[in-house]
């Protein structure tokens, strides 16, 4: 499928894929779609071979990236290990930033609690994280703080509307994909397209 070269609004979403994060996962897709941007995620990568290379290529294609570090915590099941994918991918972005899109790539870090990031990742001292408090409306608020679209700035209410429509149509989308989980490649792509269909009607 040929890509439109003038389109530059892709956002790499570095977020956890777990059941408790479902609401915020949908909120990120809804909010990003409201700005007319295209969400990308490692969910799209199906095969495990050369996964790191594919992730780097995806990051390189994106103008922006959002890294949510609110769920970097110990797994409840044994062996109890923390999830390091999110900080690792943040590290990849920071390191490759100079080579990514001529140094124009911009990355943002989101967290649920104030000051926790400074304790867990002190190397980011000086970088202000965006605190969403673990809430859907918090994600929308912080996306409005991150992005500004002068000709058509979406409101939190519009993003909430897109989110509600996504929620309403979610069972049908899952049924259509024969999946029971949001964190599958096809479901993510369908949700991103559906969010854009809603955004066209609500924001434009």
């Amino acid at each position, binding site marked *: *499928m*040929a*890509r*439109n070269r*003038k*389109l*530059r*609004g*892709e956002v790499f979403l570095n977020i956890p894929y777990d059941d408790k994060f479902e609401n915020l996962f949908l909120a990120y897709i809804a909010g990003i*779609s409201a*700005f*007319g*941007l*295209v969400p*990308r995620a490692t969910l*799209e990568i199906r095969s495990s071979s050369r996964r790191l290379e594919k992730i780097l290529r995806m990051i390189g294609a994106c*103008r*922006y990236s959002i890294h949510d570090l609110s769920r970097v915590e110990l797994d409840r099941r044994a062996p109890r290990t923390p999830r390091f994918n999110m900080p690792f991918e943040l590290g990849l972005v920071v390191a490759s930033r100079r080579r990514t899109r001529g140094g124009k790539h*911009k990355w943002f870090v989101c967290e649920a609690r104030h000051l926790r990031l400074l304790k867990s990742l002190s190397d980011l001292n000086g970088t*202000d994280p965006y605190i969403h408090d673990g809430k859907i409306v918090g994600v929308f608020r912080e996306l409005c*703080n*991150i*992005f*500004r*679209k*002068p000709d*058509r700035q979406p409101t939190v209410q519009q993003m909430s*509307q897109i989110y509600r*429509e996504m929620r*309403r*149509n979610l069972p*049908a*989308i899952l049924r*259509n994909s024969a999946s029971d989980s949001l964190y599958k490649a096809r479901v993510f*792509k*369908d949700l*991103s*397209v*559906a969010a*854009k*269909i*809603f955004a*066209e*009607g*609500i*924001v*434009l």
Partner: protein
Amino acid sequence: MTVRIDSRFATANETADVLGVSRQRVKQLKKLIYASMKARRASGISWTAPAGSRKAPQVACARIAAKKSRMMSPGSLRTKPSRKSNAPRRTLKRGKKSKTAR
């Protein structure tokens, strides 16, 4: 730091192109979404119209007007919580005094 977005608004088809979703699948999703909106409109639930639809504002206005007329009717005036009596509910037995009277 706020970033100014200078790229244009990506449409559903452009989003599908980037993500590798076929146009046929986009049509299926649109059909799914509009069928759901139609079902909700038929049952009277408020919905969000896709671009180009003219019926959504009428439905929304009808709902707002119906709500307004309900609020204006005398029957809708119920006792507000502030009008409820603050008198103690517990009645004392004969010969007993309240705590404040002791």
